């Protein structure tokens, strides 16, 4: 598998939010400010890759050998939830101010569709671990890209008079729709 194509596909062609509809809640919820959006993207990238690695290992080397692949969902969600918390605990243990700075800067990275979705997709698409990691990272970057773009547009929309009924989620969704329309232009790149 060609990694470049995998990356282009995950970022542009099959963008996780705009084409695959995963992680729409944070996409709408954390896109009010560009700086937060950037921060969120960075954090999600780490979490996504870490989660992909751990879940992949558990699936391939625990669940499958034991013949309980159907436990995927329940195992993943518990593992991911604990993982996110563990990262926070570690950060807090390491340095209070560092942890505080993060806390003040970013909302809690909750387990959302995107993280779990990627973990499941890696298995579904029969990726090996390397591909899974690349896919996870690229997907996270795609997520960040969409998030930052939307945040930019929303910050700009603050300056104009959007009709009152459209303010908030509706205008964000319509913007996302047009963005998805634009991204369809990348079809066929891979």
């Amino acid at each position, binding site marked *: 598998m060609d990694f470049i194509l995998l990356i282009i596909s995950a970022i542009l062609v099959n963008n996780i939010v705009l084409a695959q*509809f995963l992680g729409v*809640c944070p996409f709408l919820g954390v896109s009010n400010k560009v700086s937060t959006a950037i921060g969120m993207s960075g954090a999600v990238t780490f979490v996504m890759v870490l989660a992909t690695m751990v879940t992949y290992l558990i699936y391939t080397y625990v669940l499958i050998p034991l013949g309980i692949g159907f*436990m995927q*969902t329940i195992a993943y969600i*518990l593992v991911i939830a604990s993982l996110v918390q563990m990262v926070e605990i570690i950060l807090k243990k390491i340095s209070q101010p560092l942890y505080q700075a993060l806390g003040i800067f970013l909302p809690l990275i909750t387990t959302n*569709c995107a993280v779990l979705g990627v973990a499941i997709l890696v298995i579904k698409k029969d990726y090996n671990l390397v591909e899974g990691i690349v896919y996870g990272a690229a997907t996270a970057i795609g997520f960040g890209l969409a998030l930052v773009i939307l945040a930019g547009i929303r910050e700009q929309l603050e300056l104009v008079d959007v009709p009152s009924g*459209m303010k908030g989620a509706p205008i964000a969704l319509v913007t996302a*729709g*047009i963005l998805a329309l634009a991204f369809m232009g990348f079809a066929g790149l891979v």
Partner: protein
Amino acid sequence: MNQVQNFTKGFIKENPILVMVLGACPTLATTSSMINGLGMGLATTFVLLGSNTVVSLMKNLIPDKVRIPAFIVVIATFVTIVDLVMNAYVPSLYESLGIFIPLIVVNCIVLGRAEAFASKNTVWSSVVDGAGMGLGFTTALGVLGAIREILGSGAIGGFKFISGDGILVFILAPGAFIALGYMIAIVKKINKA
């Protein structure tokens, strides 16, 4: 609040997707046709009903600090059950909903109701709440699915009423976003009035 209100609030006033914009992913992903939308909605409703019931039954058995993992386990169990059952008995629907069935587990509505409602209320109220919220979600998905299907392929419930194609965008990703956007705006207007 009486049980009727408790049940109906999920349809318009506190509709999970149209008012609270929760669970946007499955909403967007599975409403390319009305049937798929309804299927997803019902699957979610089942999980919601199940988890609300169990959570409210066990609310006093679960210490506060582990309530979130406990809820997650309960919810994930129901999700896996739905997953397995649908795979076995409605394979084609199962295939078109794809990854979004396991993802019910992270749908904020489910955890949100468990946490905000079921863990504080009686079993019966929780069942009614779960049914109301779930069916409200289902209705919204059904309506959105119907709109997209009518516009996008000139069909309803799979039955085509025009020859040729509709406005294809509506069954694709951009149309999903745009249609949901306007739908939320309209519901906002209705709720205000």
